[in-house]
Structures are given as structure tokens and as C-alpha cells.
């Protein structure tokens, strides 16, 4: 018996297809193609081969005892999606969808990106498979994730900055949808997370489910059982669903999603959909949305571009309302403290998104206590965030010039009185 409660294109009351009629045919085509592909041994073998030889799967599971020493008792294991080719979990879904795009005879893919990781992964797959690629990115995000903009362009993708609205992920999705509805004949919209109209939430989850499947087995090999808690950060929700899915039917495993608490819920500057959002519709799905009394989408804030999004995948809305998973906000400060702690205790620089999951684990650790086992999805690495983190910790000045701890020089006497 499964607790998925997925009936057709709905997760409980959430999901569906709130889209222009012009997209319905393309969504039907995609749904048919992915259903067929997931039952086709050749497709699955090709996907497996790419995951192994190109991405580097399985990603390792790393125990982090020096970090765990700060968490009040539990043993902590990281699922190392940061070590995937391109540096995050995003590649899992991208390779699956890019193969589908080829299978459907599309010659162009488009994508939205926040932190730039999904854009980089899409540009990578497009280069690998010989597809044209356009990536939409909010203006604000192109500035704070400049390194990833350069990476996408090096890979041959066209990057379009979106200045409208808040200049972040939601506006990039609007622009990608506009492109798709205009070019749907030859273009596949390679959506980067578990939201959007059916079949995206289900399809993207299925391509990420490998994270949890591997981790469950790896952990069992080490501890001989299940974890007590699984922690992930939640932007749109793809890395979280990817690791949750294998544990969904295990009542002894607490599933925890950590959202961007920004400056704190009370300030209004955050992206905590389950703390301050209401059920609504955004980007094709019925789900929780941060909105005002008139149903206008609210602007969000997070130090992490990948979590800076006013809505969340519909399956998370269902997991939340049914109590099957729990969600809590983590502030910018808590996330950056956890970021620093992992760097200094374990020699791993995490993505700031993933640092929200680390901070969450530090918070729930003491309740779980000695001997408990916590699994964290380390969804990405922090190379893209070095500039943000260096500014946060005061390692650079306003011009981006590095500060050093001291200055080494020729060891000679400066005095002239020798």
C-alpha cells in the first residue's frame, strides 16, 4: 500500500494543469512519451549508462562526524549530490528530460534557472546531445550567480536575463512559458523542479528518485537499517522529493523539508510557503503560494537564489497537508552558519541551498538524540556561492578584493641601523 495518494494528475487536492489551452497538446505528448519511455528497457539502459559514465553515479554517502558533533547526538550522513557532474542533483532530471526531448524529435530545449545549477545542467545536456538551448534567468540572479552565467555560455547556451517582476526564478519561469507557448512545435521546456503542470511534477520526481534509492541502500549497508530522519532543502522541491520518495512508505522515518526563512518570517522577507503561503495556483499547478489578499504573488527573499521562489511543488503541498512530511523555515543566518560549519569541520563547501538542510539537521538533532541516524541531501556544491559567502563573511571588500590574514614578505630587517 502506498501513501502517494496520486490519482491521475493530482496529489490529493494539489497539482493539475492550470495552463493555456495552447500547451495542452504538448503536455499530452510529453505525458505519453515519458510513460512509454519509462517502460522501455532501451531508454532506461541509456539513462543508466549516462548516470554512471557521465554524471558519476552512484553519488557517495559520506558520514560527517566532526559536523555531527554540533548536532546534539545523532550520526549524520550526507548524500553527495554535490559530486555529480555539473555540481548538483539537477543533472538527474535534466538527462532524463533531454533524452525524452530527443525521443520526441525536438531540436531545442529551454529552461528557467535560479541559482544557475539547472541552467548549467541543461546547457550541459544540450551540448552533449546536440540540442539548441536557451536559458531564462532573473536579472537579480544573473548578478548574484554570475559564475554560472559564464558556465552556461561556455557550454554554448543562450542566456536571457529577465528584468520583469522581481527579477528572480518566478519571472524566469514566466518567460520560459511564454517562449514555450510560442515555439512548442520544436521546443521542449526542460522544467527544473517538481512543479508546473502535469506531468512535470511526477516526471521530475521519477528522474530524481534515484537519489533516495541509492541512499537507502548505501545507508543500510553502513548502519543496517533506515534513517530516523531525512533532511532536504526545498525550493521547488526536486532534491527533497528525490530523496524522500524511497522512504515515503516508512512511518519510522521523519521527512523534513527546510524552506528559505530569509530575514525571518516576521519580517515578510522570506520564501517560506508553508509558514505564510495559502493554497492557490502558480505556474500551472495548484499548490501553496505566497500571495496577498488579492491573489497577487508576493516577492520573496533568500540569500540562496535556488530557494527564492514563491511557490512549491504540488506533491509537497500534499505531503504537508497530510502530515506525511514536515516543513520548517531556516533563516539566511542559520544557513550561512551551517555553511561555514561544514566547510571548517569536514572540508566540504556546500551550496547555500543545501546549507538550509544542514542547518535544519542541526536544529532537529538534539530531539533525536544519541544513536539516531540523520540523512541529509547535500544537493549541490558551493563553488557558485563563493562570491556571496565571501561577502557574507567579510572575506572581500565591496569591490570584491580578497582580504588576507597577514602579509608574508622577505624576511629582512627594515631598519637601517644594523
Amino acid at each position: 500500500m502506498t501513501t502517494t495518494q496520486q490519482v491521475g494528475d493530482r496529489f490529493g487536492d494539489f497539482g493539475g494543469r492550470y495552463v493555456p489551452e495552447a500547451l495542452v497538446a504538448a503536455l499530452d505528448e510529453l505525458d505519453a512519451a515519458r510513460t512509454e519511455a519509462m517502460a522501455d528497457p532501451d531508454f532506461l539502459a541509456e539513462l543508466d549508462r549516462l548516470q554512471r559514465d557521465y554524471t558519476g553515479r552512484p553519488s557517495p554517502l559520506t558520514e560527517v562526524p566532526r559536523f555531527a558533533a554540533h548536532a546534539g547526538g545523532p550520526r549524520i550522513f550526507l548524500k553527495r549530490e554535490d559530486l555529480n557532474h555539473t555540481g548538483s542533483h539537477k543533472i538527474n532530471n535534466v538527462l532524463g528530460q533531454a533524452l525524452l526531448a530527443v525521443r520526441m524529435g525536438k531540436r531545442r530545449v529551454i529552461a528557467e534557472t535560479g541559482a544557475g545549477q539547472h541552467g548549467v545542467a541543461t546547457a550541459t545536456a544540450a551540448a552533449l546531445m546536440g540540442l539548441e538551448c536557451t536559458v531564462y534567468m532573473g536579472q537579480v540572479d544573473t548578478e548574484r550567480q554570475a559564475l554560472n552565467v559564464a558556465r552556461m555560455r561556455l557550454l554554448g547556451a543562450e542566456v536571457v536575463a529577465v528584468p520583469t517582476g522581481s527579477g528572480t526564478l518566478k519571472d524566469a519561469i514566466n518567460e520560459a512559458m511564454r517562449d514555450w507557448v510560442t515555439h512548442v512545435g520544436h521546443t521542449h521546456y526542460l522544467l527544473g523542479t517538481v512543479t508546473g503542470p502535469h506531468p512535470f511534477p511526477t516526471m521530475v520526481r521519477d528522474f530524481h528518485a534515484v537519489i533516495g534509492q541509492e541512499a537507502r541502500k548505501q545507508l543500510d549497508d553502513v548502519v543496517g537499517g533506515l534513517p530516523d530522519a531525512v533532511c532536504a532543502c526545498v525550493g521547488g522541491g526536486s532534491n527533497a522529493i528525490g530523496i524522500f520518495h524511497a522512504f515515503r512508505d516508512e512511518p519510522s522515518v521523519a521527512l523534513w523539508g527546510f524552506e528559505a526563512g530569509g530575514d525571518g518570517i516576521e519580517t515578510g522577507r522570506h520564501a517560506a510557503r508553508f509558514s505564510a503561503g495559502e493554497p492557490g495556483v502558480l505556474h500551472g499547478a495548484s499548490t501553496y503560494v505566497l500571495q496577498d489578499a488579492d491573489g497577487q504573488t508576493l516577492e520573496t527573499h533568500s540569500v540562496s537564489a535556488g530557494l527564492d521562489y514563491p511557490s512549491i511543488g504540488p506533491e509537497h503541498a500534499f505531503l504537508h497537508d497530510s502530515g506525511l512530511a514536515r516543513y520548517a523555515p531556516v533563516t539566511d543566518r542559520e544557513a550561512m552558519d551551517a555553511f561555514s560549519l561544514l566547510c571548517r569541520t569536514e572540508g566540504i563547501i556546500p551550496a547555500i541551498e543545501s546549507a538550509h538542510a544542514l542547518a535544519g539537521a542541526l536544529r532537529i538533532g538534539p530531539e533525536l538524540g544519541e544513536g539516531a541516524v540523520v540523512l541529509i541531501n547535500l544537493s549541490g556544491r558551493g563553488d557558485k556561492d563563493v562570491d556571496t559567502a565571501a561577502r557574507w563573511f567579510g572575506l572581500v571588500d565591496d569591490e570584491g578584493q580578497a582580504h588576507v590574514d597577514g602579509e608574508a614578505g622577505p624576511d629582512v630587517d627594515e631598519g637601517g641601523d644594523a
Partner: protein
Amino acid sequence: MSVLDDLFAGCREEGRSALVGYLPAGYPDLPTSLEAIRTLADAGADIIEVGVPYTDPLMDGPVVERAASTALRSGFRLTDVFTVVAAARDAGAVPVVMTYWNPVLRYGVDRFAQDLADAGGAGLITPDLIPDEAGAWRAAAEEQDLAPVFLVAPSSTDARLRSTTQACRGFVYVASTMGVTGVRDAVGSDAERLVGRTRAVTDLPLCVGLGVSTGDQAAEVAGFADGVIVGSALVRALGGPDGLGALRRLTEELAAGVRRA
């Protein structure tokens, strides 16, 4: 018979198509918006599509998108839409509202239908709500005698053309090209084909939108459609210098166009 049925019957008797003009409520601000609606009605729009400005208008091109942002910055509140609808009705046009779904959902579907009917609205066009997801709205529309107007697109299969038009009342919105709203140089040949395919499955009046900006284009579309929908071109006129004057002149040109076919 609803006001929309009467209106299309009247146009048919006159041997012409209806002119459907779109403007976002509250653009550029509420007082000017009310003036603009009266101008539109007075200069010859038969149906006025009152748009609800929304933060994430993913079916709209830059002209309408910018107008929506301007209206929101000027303080547009959702209930203003009923004020604008009432003004359109008082000016002698038939008002319908065009809105993305979330504002209606948030307001409450039944409450929105009630308040729209009370303000004199005849129906609701829903660019991101397909009949498959519209159970609650269709029930509320029936209750309030409002027309649910859904869109058909060049990519719609014949089966969807049939099921979508069966869910429509008043008229069908024929989105003539694949893409977002905006002015186009040529009205694609897709439009006439799609109208033909849609005619084969419904007797409802067919209104064609997306791209019309001149009297000549209006005349061309009026040659095969029951209504010609103009949006971005009117918004652009209103947003330029001498906005209300330009809006009147363009509306008159379009009204002459739909009578010329």
C-alpha cells in the same frame, strides 16, 4: 437568451462582426481607466474585455505585461474590476472579464461570480483555466447566468475543440496564433483554418484574438469570424501621448473595419 446571445444576433442582422476591445482595469490608474472604458464603448466597441492585472501574466507579451505592472503600482485592487465592469455596462457595452485564475480562486469562485453578475458582467475569459480544471467555476457561472469563455488554439485536437466549445457559453475565444498577446504585422493563416475547424464542432459565435491592430486587419478577420478581439494595440494607444484621443481614433478605425468585411 443572454446579453451576449442578443449582441451576436444583432451583429448578424447588421451583417457584421462584433468588435471586442481589451483593456486592463486600473491602467494606467483607476480614474483614467474608467474614462478609457467609456471612450472604448462610445467609439464602437461592442464587447469590452476588462482585464485583471496580475503579477505573473504568462500568456501576455510585453505591452500587456507592462500595463499590468503599471496598474498594480498605481494601487489596483481586485474589487476595482467590478467598478470598471459597471462603467462599461453603463456606457452601453457588454462587459466580460479576462483574468488569470489565482485572483479568482483567492477571492472565492462563488463570491467572484456573484459580484461580477451584480456589477453587470456577462462572462469570464480564463486564459490559464481549461475546462478540465473548471468544475467549480462552471457551476458558479451557471448559477449566476454568466458565460464561461474558454480558449481554443491551433494546437487543439479536434476532440479538444469539441469538449472545450461544449463548455463555453456566449462565444468561443479563438487564439489564432501560437504565442502570447501582442501586435503582429500579419494575422496568420492559422486563424482562418482554426475558425473553420472550430465551426465544424460548434454553433457558438467565434471571436478571434491575438495580434489584430489595424482597421484593415479587423476587416480581414471579420471576413471569417463573428468577433474581432483587439488588446495590445488599444493598450499601446492608451499608453502613448494623447492616450484617450489615440484610443478613440483607433477604436473608430477598428469599428469601421468590422463593418467593412
